[in-house]
């Protein structure tokens, strides 16, 4: 067998610790599932309505992220280096910010006494607030993944297309986005996963009203706190989220962190 690289073999030990640390907790979760009541738990009214709400708000947030995130990623990727670095930093802030702080900030923008309070638009503690909170935390994932892919593929192919007579919309749809497709796919998956799993900002900005703002993560939290529901329900809901996440990753074959750049390199 050919030797794959020259990393010191002893590094296998911390590497194993790392993978165990990621896998064991999830195994422990699955180990606690009460299989007898599982079906009952996941088909309860609360669970189903939380699932429905999570799916619809998550998909809607992802769609809005695509509409505003693709242009933003294009703009950053083609901006002058300094402008691009600045914009990238701005986009990264919500990514590193504790989601609670994001929720608080949204409250001070959209709340009754916030900057947009004079409009009389009642946003907080509605389903709209759920979507806004999800967009706030999920948009950076899409923009950063896509921006990297677009920047890596460069403008040479776009120039070639322009020389052949293609207009800017044709170039966008038939050259730029197809070339950045791996980045777009992984960005969209991450964006949806982050939106569907959003907890902190939603809790502060949208509250925890069943059927209106209680998404899966909030339902899990509520169930686990023992507000009249058993822990079994929390575990069942968690299992559902876990299975969904793995399924999405499997669906989008070829997903890998930084996959955009790697695949673009292969295509060349």
């Amino acid at each position: 067998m050919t030797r794959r690289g020259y990393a010191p073999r002893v590094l296998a030990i911390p590497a194993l610790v790392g993978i165990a640390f990621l896998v064991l907790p999830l195994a422990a979760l699955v180990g606690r599932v009460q299989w007898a009541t599982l079906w009952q738990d996941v088909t309860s009214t609360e669970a189903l309505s939380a699932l429905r709400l999570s799916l619809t708000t998550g998909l809607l947030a992802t769609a809005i992220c695509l509409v505003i995130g693709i242009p933003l990623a294009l703009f950053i990727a083609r901006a002058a280096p300094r402008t691009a670095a600045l914009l990238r930093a701005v986009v990264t802030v919500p990514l590193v910010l504790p989601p609670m702080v994001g929720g608080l900030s949204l409250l001070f923008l959209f709340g009754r006494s916030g900057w947009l309070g004079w409009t009389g638009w009642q946003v907080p503690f509605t389903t709209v607030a759920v979507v806004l909170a999800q967009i706030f935390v999920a948009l950076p994932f899409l923009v950063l993944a896509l921006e990297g892919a677009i920047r890596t593929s460069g403008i040479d192919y776009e120039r070639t297309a322009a020389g052949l007579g293609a207009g800017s919309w044709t170039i966008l749809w038939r050259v730029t986005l197809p070339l950045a497709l791996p980045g777009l796919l992984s960005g969209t998956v991450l964006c949806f996963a982050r939106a569907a799993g959003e907890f902190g900002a939603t809790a502060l900005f949208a509250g925890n009203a069943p059927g209106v703002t209680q998404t899966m993560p909030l339902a899990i939290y509520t169930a686990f706190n023992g507000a009249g529901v058993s822990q079994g329900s929390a575990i069942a809901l968690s299992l559902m989220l876990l299975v969904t996440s793995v399924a999405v990753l499997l669906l989008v074959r070829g997903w890998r962190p930084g996959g955009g750049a790697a695949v673009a390199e292969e295509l060349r």
Partner: protein
Amino acid sequence: MTVAGGSGAALDAEIRVDRGAFTLDAALRAEPGEIVALMGPSGAGKSTMLGVIAGFVALSAGTVRLDGDTVQDAARIDVPPRERGVVLLGQQPRLFPHLNARDNIAFGPRSRRVPKTRARADAEAWLERIGLAGLGDRRPARLSGGQQQRVALARALATAPRALLLDEPLTSLDPATADGIRALLRGELAATGTTVVMATHDAADAVALADRLIVLESGRVTGDAAPSAVLDAPATPFAAALARTVPGAAASWEVRVEGTRIIAGGVIVRGRAADGSAVELQMPPDVPVLPGAVISVRPPTL
């Protein structure tokens, strides 16, 4: 199929680009259907010149005209690349990696709203012309370098360009593959009547393909004539060095000495070259030269 018959435009470019210490100041004219080779040392400004004509580089002064229409000048009458009808084909074929060979060739016509079925049928005919019939479904990654360059050439010609700019299209290919592409270029450029400007490092390409050769050195034109004329009477050391790379061109010439005359600081030698023309050479004072001797003159080495 639509053969891009006689689509070539007359090209008339007065180009000045100031870029820090470097100034490109050169004129380039080509008749419709004419093939002009552009040669010069690296950094002489060849690629910049092609970039200006293609519309990717701004002018500091001058104009670019196609069939008399100004498409670019320093005051920014700037016809964008996609409306110019000028296609630049470089060392890298730059085929779109996500499209197969057929769709790559059909890309230009499709962008100009040619119906899909007709664009594909034309692309299929092009594949046959470039010797790649049956490979239309292959993505570029599954074509060899030479095959990719063939597809890139067909993709460029399928748009019936008013001018085709070639920037060392054969440089990254092995000699045998390059020969094949050279033959294809010769045939297709003549058949389509395309106006061509071709930057190259290979004097053999200029001799084999071009009607005219322009030599560009440090941003200035130092030679502009038929390739054989430029290479037979090299005006600069660079042109002389080029000439020596072409078999059969003026590699060296011989002078039969007829008489000598001593002047201050040297000896003037009168003689005749092989074609009978009279020649005078100035020699250092201490070189013994007798009538009847033969002096061999070689262009200097760079």
